[in-house]
């Protein structure tokens, strides 16, 4: 009985609350319908008044914006120091991918023929971010020829007294071009002088580099010293075994006027080369220059060049191998998008058997089209004469041979790729 009474009371309670809920919901719906009717009336009135005005006036009003009120907004900049869009990714490194699609057609002495048409010859995955207020990490992973490798990966530590310490794997700052990523260069190949000096690949070292920029008057002078190991098999150990070397470099940049700069530099590298048990040092010395002019419309020209000499000891009682490698490059920017260039490469190698020099030369010409900030196409022709061993191997011809090469390169970048060095 008691149970039945409880059930009855519960049912009554549920029914009454359900009715109350339904009633309040109906009230709310009524209010919403009334609001909607009111809004429809307002819109209809507005539409009628617009129809009553001449069509031309209405069109003119639509085109003619109203001036913004000259009210100066006072804000507290401290509150807005970081905007949402950038803050979202502030914890992540910047990631960019550079695709290098490079085709070539080579015709050389001895019936050598080779060609490829715009394969993705290299993809660079570039990561970079500040680690903390004291240091930064930059890593470039390169995928090429079916494999992936860390091409560069180094920490930049900001030390006291304006010193920068770079630790890790890095393109070595020798001359002007070696430190630059190939996609940042106007031409599609590697200068023959550098190929003869270090091989077709960039001269890379694992170690420490210490540099200090100095602002002297209107110029910037940068002094660099480093100690590294390298597996370069052309300048150092032919077996590719790691060898240790030291590096010293100076480069200076002057403003000649608002549009023109002059850069000069010199460098020296020394280390054991592993060719023999004793008397096996490699020494590399050289210098570079760059004269750049660019006016406000971004038209201009550059003239730059570098020269390197390598002394490579071959062991006790054996004459050292001496090689020179150099290039001279002239570019003309017609405007923001189009550039013409021509390069002369010159290398020579001392031949102890004839007590003379084997001399190689090459001339290139090309055109570069910068489609946008993030892609560009280069077409280049190069004629090489009397190729020395490294260049001959790179072109697939016999030493001393000639070759005509055409290069077509399409470089694209996605992601927040930073500015290239000046």
């Amino acid at each position, binding site marked *: 009985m008691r149970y039945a009474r409880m059930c009855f009371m519960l049912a009554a309670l549920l029914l009454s609350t359900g009715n109350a809920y339904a009633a309040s919901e109906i009230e709310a719906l009524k209010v919403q319908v009334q609001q909607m009717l009111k809004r429809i009336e307002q819109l209809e009135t507005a539409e009628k008044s617009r129809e009553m005005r001449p069509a031309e006036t209405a069109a003119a009003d639509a*085109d*003619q*914006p*109203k*001036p*913004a009120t*000259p*009210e*100066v*907004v*006072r*804000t*507290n*900049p401290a509150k*807005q*120091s*970081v*905007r949402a*869009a*950038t803050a979202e990714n502030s914890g992540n490194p910047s990631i960019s991918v550079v695709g290098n699609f490079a085709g070539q057609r080579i015709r050389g002495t001895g019936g050598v023929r080779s060609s490829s048409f715009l394969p993705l010859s290299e993809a660079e995955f570039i990561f970079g971010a500040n680690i903390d*207020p004291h240091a930064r990490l930059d890593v470039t992973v390169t995928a090429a020829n079916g494999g992936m490798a860390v091409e560069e990966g180094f920490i930049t530590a*900001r030390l006291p007294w*304006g010193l*920068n310490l770079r630790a890790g794997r890095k393109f070595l700052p020798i001359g002007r071009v070696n430190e630059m990523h190939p996609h940042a260069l106007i031409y599609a190949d590697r200068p023959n002088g550098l190929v003869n000096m270090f091989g077709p690949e960039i001269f890379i070292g694992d170690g420490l580099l210490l540099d200090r*920029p100095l*602002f002297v008057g*209107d*110029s*910037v002078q940068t002094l660099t010293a480093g100690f590294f190991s390298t597996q370069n098999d052309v300048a150092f150990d032919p077996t590719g075994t790691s060898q240790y070397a030291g590096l010293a470099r100076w480069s200076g*940049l*002057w*403003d000649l006027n*608002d549009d023109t*700069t002059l850069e000069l530099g010199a460098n020296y590298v020394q280390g054991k080369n592993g060719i023999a048990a004793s008397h096996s040092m490699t020494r590399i010395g050289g210098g570079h220059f760059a004269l750049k002019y*660019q006016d*406000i*419309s*971004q038209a201009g020209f550059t003239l730059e060049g570098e020269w390197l000499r390598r002394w490579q000891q071959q062991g006790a009682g054996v004459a050292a191998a001496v090689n020179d490698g150099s290039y001279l490059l002239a570019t003309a920017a017609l*405007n*923001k*998008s189009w550039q013409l260039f021509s390069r002369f490469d010159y290398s020579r190698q001392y031949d102890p058997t004839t007590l003379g020099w084997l001399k190689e030369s090459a001339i290139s010409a090309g055109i570069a089209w910068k489609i*946008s*900030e*993030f892609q560009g196409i280069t077409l280049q022709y190069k004629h090489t004469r009397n190729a020395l061993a490294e260049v001959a191997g790179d072109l697939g011809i016999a030493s001393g041979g000639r070759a005509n090469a055409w290069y077509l390169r399409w470089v694209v970048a*996605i992601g927040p790729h*930073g*500015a290239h*060095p*000046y």
Partner: protein
Amino acid sequence: MTLIKHSLLALLLFGLLPTVAHAKLHIVATLPALGQIAAAVAGEDGEVRVLARVGQDPHFVPPKPTLARHLADADLLVTAGLGLEMGWLPPLIELSRNSRIRQGQPGYFAGADAVDILGAMQKVDRAMGDVHPEGNPHWWIDPIRAASAALALSERLAMIDPTHAVEYRQRAEAFAKRLQKLVTEWQSRLAGISPVVSYHDSYRYFSERFAIPVAGFIEPKPGVEASTRHLDELVALIGSKHVSQLWVEPYHLGRIARRVATLSGAELLTMPDAVEGEGADGYVAMIELLLEAVAGAQK
């Protein structure tokens, strides 16, 4: 010996005191107009240097390492912000090794943080051209936003150099009032102006402030060169919308702009985003030059 020590100390003090007493704030501005706004606020209490030159495209200033020498001893860096200088400023800040002017530090001031921004986008893709996702960065072309930035800059200067806080605030107030008066006068003079076409979306803040309708752009998308088809459509649009003026930045004045002007009959106006001149007078001269050019072409 004591006499020598005291003399040396006195010499040192006398040598240093004038330097301290006359030490000016070193302010570096990325763009000439920002330098003029900064100079208007800093007055004699600050020395302003500018990285870009008058007439240079603010997106593509060559990052010459020699520019970093100005940043090395800067107390304050004034930028437009919104990624406008992203392509060239970061390597210069890095090279300068000046931690005071890094982003997030009191010595880094982005004017865009102090003004209302137009053109911000939620989703951005590079297929849309060279767009700035956080908004259009050419805000300094609007005198009222320039005034807002000047007021905010005075607060920042007051924070860095409290001894001259009153002077910074007074100068900023005077500059803001001058710009407000200028805008009020010109808004009525330019009322009912016919639509214009501009090369790049550099004048959005200016055109909205003075109610000048913009019918289209020579660039089909920001930073993208126009195709023949786009130019044909633009010439037709200029005719149908009765566009009388074609606004072009000095660094975009070239074959394409001239061709559109010739084909359409619209008057080609070179509209600089900065002119030579010092401080407030230099900035006002730029705005007046723009306004007079627009009003002159309308007659």
